[in-house]
């Protein structure tokens, strides 16, 4: 069977900044994301960043349009040739 280079989506969680651009770009609302604000004051200055808690893709509604891959400015979403599960879910440890 020929490999489909765009069979599913791959999340590269360390690149994700939880900016919500992919969630809002999705025309079928199949992406969901939970994140929390993490404040780091160890360097003396207050630095806050978002930490990704959960990222899920409902492949039952996903129509493989690729808008989320296109819009991601941090290359945290990529095309993958793996066959998709019905539901993809990533959770932080």
């Amino acid at each position, binding site marked *: 069977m020929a490999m489909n280079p765009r069979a599913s989506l791959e999340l590269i969680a360390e690149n994700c900044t939880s900016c*919500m651009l992919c969630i*809002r770009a*999705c025309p079928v*609302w199949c*992406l*969901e*994301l939970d994140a929390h*604000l993490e404040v780091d004051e160890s360097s003396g200055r207050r630095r806050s960043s*978002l930490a990704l808690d959960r990222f899920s893709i409902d492949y039952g*509604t996903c129509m493989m349009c690729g808008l989320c891959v296109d819009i991601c400015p941090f290359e945290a979403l990529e095309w993958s040739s793996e066959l998709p599960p019905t539901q993809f879910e990533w959770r932080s440890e």
Partner: protein
Amino acid sequence: MSWRSELQALRDDGFDVLDWLSATEEDDEVVVTACLVRSEDPGSFRLVRSPAPVESVVDMFPSAQWHERETAEMFGVTFEGLNAAPLLLPPDSPAPLRKAQPLPARLSQWPGEVDPAKPRRRQDPPGTPWR
């Protein structure tokens, strides 16, 4: 020139196949569009557009019946002279392809509504004017 006479003129001109007929909702009116093809030269076609309601052309193009019934129930437009028996939808259901008709999937919570960076700011999804 009316919808019927326009189609009749094209049919007399050799565009004898009704390839497709449907409607689009534009601003505040529903526009019915038909595509006619010349059977001797299938590459050439003509589009005819007219705001609804229009007259039925089933007597002229029998193949228009399915398209007219589908357009009538999906967009809630009337074709004068057409027996618009329901085709796919249960009786008394609203016209699902009109813009005022909310998509059931869009009535759930939008996943992009919450902004995790500013938890108190909420956003509205684009393209859902009824929310």
